[in-house]
């Protein structure tokens, strides 16, 4: 068995392993590295989010078996100190990419979600044509490469996603250059017979934006046009890529409202 197979198997079983940590996480019984691993999973797993909440409610009632009123001085200290601490503002109410996507798609009467074709993974058509492989960015001394034009554009905006401990992907997009570039750091390889596929998301529709070469650290330019896109997503697809996403994205880069 090759290293690659090992890594692929590890990735494939990571979700299952993470699900199993949900109880220990709810009672803070994970060590530092497990906690990091699980929180990365949690951010993308609605099932675990719901389970964590209910298990924390359950654990919390255990505390009712050991009530102890703190000394009166503690109340005085706490109430004196809050005067010196500014409460955080609420988190900005910004529709998530998924919400905006759903809303737009619903309005247009063609609701297409990441999940809509998940059931059809086995039958997913593998695109043979019309889907280019993105080119690694090669520095060209004489003129600005298309990737550099994006990175150096005045309106270049960058969106980063943490995919795990020390694993990060950053999308830089520019309307004037009408293109985007993605940079990855410490990206693990996709599972066997799978590829990372890039997508532009536009009004609830996903446009293939190329396949990512396998490399931990790289900068690649996306196919397609950045102008008017709501964001970029990465999914894991069968080798050769898909016409539309067949799985939930492992990362979403929300461009936010246009500048």
């Amino acid at each position: 068995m090759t290293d690659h197979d090992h890594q692929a198997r590890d990735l494939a079983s990571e979700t299952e392993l993470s699900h199993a940590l949900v109880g220990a996480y709810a009672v803070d019984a994970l060590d530092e590295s497990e906690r990091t691993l699980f929180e990365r999973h949690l951010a993308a797993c609605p099932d675990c989010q719901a389970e964590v909440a209910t298990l924390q409610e359950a654990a919390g009632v255990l505390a009712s078996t050991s009530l102890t009123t703190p000394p009166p001085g503690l109340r005085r200290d706490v109430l004196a100190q809050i005067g010196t601490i500014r409460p955080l503002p609420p988190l900005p109410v910004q529709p998530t990419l998924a919400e905006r996507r759903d809303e737009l798609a619903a309005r247009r009467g063609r609701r297409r979600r990441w999940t809509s074709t998940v059931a059809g993974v086995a039958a997913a058509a593998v695109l043979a044509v019309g889907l280019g492989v993105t080119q690694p960015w090669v520095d060209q001394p004489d003129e600005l490469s298309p990737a550099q034009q994006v990175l150096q554009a005045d309106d270049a905006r960058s969106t980063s996603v943490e995919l795990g401990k020390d694993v990060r992907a950053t999308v830089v997009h520019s309307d004037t250059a009408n293109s985007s570039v993605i940079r990855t750091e410490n990206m693990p390889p996709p599972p066997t017979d799978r590829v990372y596929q890039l997508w532009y998301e536009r009004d609830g529709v996903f446009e293939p934006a190329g396949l990512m070469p396998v490399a931990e650290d790289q900068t690649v330019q996306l196919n397609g046009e950045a102008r008017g896109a709501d964001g970029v997503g990465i999914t894991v697809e069968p080798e050769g890529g898909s016409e539309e996403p067949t799985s939930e994205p492992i990362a979403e880069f929300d461009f936010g409202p246009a500048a």
Partner: protein
Amino acid sequence: MRSTEPVASGPPAPGGPEALGRLLQRSSRGDHAAFGELYDATAARVHGLALRVVRDPAQAEEVTQEAYLETWRTASRFDPAKGSALSWMMTIVHRKAVDRVRSAEASTRRDLTYHHRTSTPEHDSTAEAAHASLEAHRVRSALAALTDVQREAVELAYLGGYTHTEVAQLLDLPLGTAKTRIRDGLIRLRDAMGVGQ
């Protein structure tokens, strides 16, 4: 060191869980009086948990204080759609209590044998007072729905502040199985208590 006093009765929770959520909401707008009310409604429970996990009364007071200050600072981040206000607060104090015991142990390895023997607190006046509360009684009944191993695993993890790996060692479970016992135990407790659904 300030002494701790046992509470006379069960948890005061005027107006129920929604009331705590409203107090949190007012606190997020800087309302000191609301936060005072919130403190009075939850202090015995919050401090009881800190003391149970940390053991040392002086350190437990610090943990309780840190937890309330964090609650004050982050009150606007409480989302009633995701759970009760009390659970949200208990999660804050539990994380702080656990961080406290683990950082204290970072340099000196914990003697698990000793702690295992003492992980069930003495039947003191505090436990006595809590026992009187209706909810504590319900919790004890609910715990009966768990297998012995599940109950021990959940209590060692939540009240003892041990990692699932340590729980496995303490209970002589094969490595990796304690997390399953903890999860199964919590699910049974949840279903028996009818919380969080």
